[in-house]
């Protein structure tokens, strides 16, 4: 069959169902669902990336605190602990926190008096451990440092942010659940739309049927129509969601917060988001085909 003949045949087949795409509610419903699905997926992926970044950033980090009221003794103890830590095999780096930096951090809460020296502020030493078995290494250090002085404490960073990481992770899973529910709802909408379309074109279907059209021939008409509706709705919903994500991303960056800036979308996540409308079209097409074939199966 020549190309033009194939096109003419396809056009003739497509005319079998009345035109009217975009006029019905289905493309718009799919657009809204796709918009919400892409936003939910972006939230889940972004939060997942943030949790991963946080884990990678905090894993193997700990802070040694020297809680000594006497400033002189505190400085001496701090220096000796730092020197001792540098000799420990599984400690990769030792960064004593300068007193001025500590004062800067607490100044917003305690005012200018924070740097006066009258306030007993613990000395802090940030350490980075070699990768793996962080908990065991921290425990070993805790015992060793405890033997040196009971005024020395060690806190792994992950412990500070565990509740936040847990919250972000839970939000990520919630977003994944919403994506799943939206997918199911989209499938249900398509099934209802296909049933409605099947019912409203019942006369045409009966005529085609009695002329010897097969179920697959008839189902193809509906799956094409609904697939095109889904393509329009999916593209529209995805585009609007994309704009919202880019806008929100710019706002997150503008906050200057290290924590909020960790919520980002790596390229794999963008690929997953881009696959959502494609998946939506496939889902709609298959759901339409299944629905129409089932309905036709009830006819003789």
């Amino acid at each position, binding site marked *: 069959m020549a190309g033009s*003949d194939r096109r003419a*045949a396809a056009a*003739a087949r497509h005319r*079998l169902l009345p*035109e009217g795409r975009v006029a019905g509610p289905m493309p718009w419903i799919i657009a809204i669902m796709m918009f919400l699905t892409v936003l939910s997926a972006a939230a889940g992926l972004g939060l997942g990336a943030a949790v991963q970044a946080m884990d990678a950033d905090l894993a193997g980090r700990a802070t040694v605190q020297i809680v000594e009221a006497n400033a002189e003794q505190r400085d001496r103890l701090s220096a000796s602990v730092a020197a001792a830590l540098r000799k420990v095999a599984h400690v990769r780096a030792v960064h004593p926190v300068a007193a001025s930096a500590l004062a800067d951090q607490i100044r917003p809460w305690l005012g200018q008096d924070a740097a006066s020296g009258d306030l007993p502020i613990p000395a802090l030493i940030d350490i980075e451990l070699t990768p793996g078995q962080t908990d065991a290494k921290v425990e070993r250090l805790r015992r060793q440092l405890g033997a040196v002085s009971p005024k020395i404490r060690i806190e792994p960073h992950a412990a500070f942010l565990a509740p936040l990481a847990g919250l972000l992770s839970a939000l990520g899973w919630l977003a994944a659940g919403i994506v799943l529910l939206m997918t199911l709802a989209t499938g249900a909408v398509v099934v209802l739309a296909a049933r409605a379309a099947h019912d409203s074109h019942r006369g045409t279907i009966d005529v085609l049927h009695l002329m*010897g059209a097969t179920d697959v021939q008839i189902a193809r008409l509906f799956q094409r129509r609904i697939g095109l509706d889904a393509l329009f709705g999916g593209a529209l919903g995805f585009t609007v969601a994309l704009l919202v994500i880019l806008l929100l991303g710019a706002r997150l960056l503008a906050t200057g917060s290290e924590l909020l800036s960790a919520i980002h979308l790596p390229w794999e996540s963008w690929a997953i988001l881009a696959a959502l409308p494609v998946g939506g079209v496939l889902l709609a097409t298959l759901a339409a085909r299944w629905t129409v074939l089932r309905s036709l199966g009830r006819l003789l």
Partner: protein
Amino acid sequence: MSAIVQFENVGLRYGLDSETLSDVSFSLASGGFYFLTGASGAGKTSLLKLLYLAQRPSRGVIRLFGEDVVTLPRKRLPGFRRRIGVVFQDFRLVPHLSVYDNIALPLRVAGMEEAEIDAPVSEMLNWVGLGDRGQARPATLSGGEQQRVAIARAVIGRPEILVADEPTGNVDADMARRLLTLFEALNRLGTTIVVATHDLPLMAQISSAQMMKLDKGRLSDPTGSLRYPPRPQVAG
């Protein structure tokens, strides 16, 4: 001539109602011309539905083209339906398609290439006198014109059996004669024609036709002796 249609003790019941058709037995010879008559509600349309495979009987055996279609798997029915042309009483034209596309429908369903469709459709349009109405929508046609489109659509695929339910109900006497001439021409080409009608003068025009009469769901005289004018002959 071999039997192309055979009904054996066929009964049809809708739901829990009493039988619409009871113990209907007859056979139609391939290439024959048959009228099916009977009062309104006698079961003519139900019998035709069984014939064009829109309905399965509640009991009995129906053979079409030598095969039992009652037990035939559903997926094989389209192949049989393509061999049967139907003129529905209510025309059943597809309202959003042009006259041309309505007539071309059976050819497209059968998968005929687009380049091969134009000639027969144009010929058919001219034949039913609608050569200049090809792009019109059915709603813009008169009842008679719609009926001619329905007939053109039924015969364009050169069916082996043509089933027509009151095909002359909406046309004037002249058009009725022309349609009948068309049916006769098809019949001469070997198509078996089954026409349900009340129109006795119409039946009188086809001398070779046989008549079956339904009375309250039963075939009152399958011998053809009730033909108008009478002609004792058994089909098949």
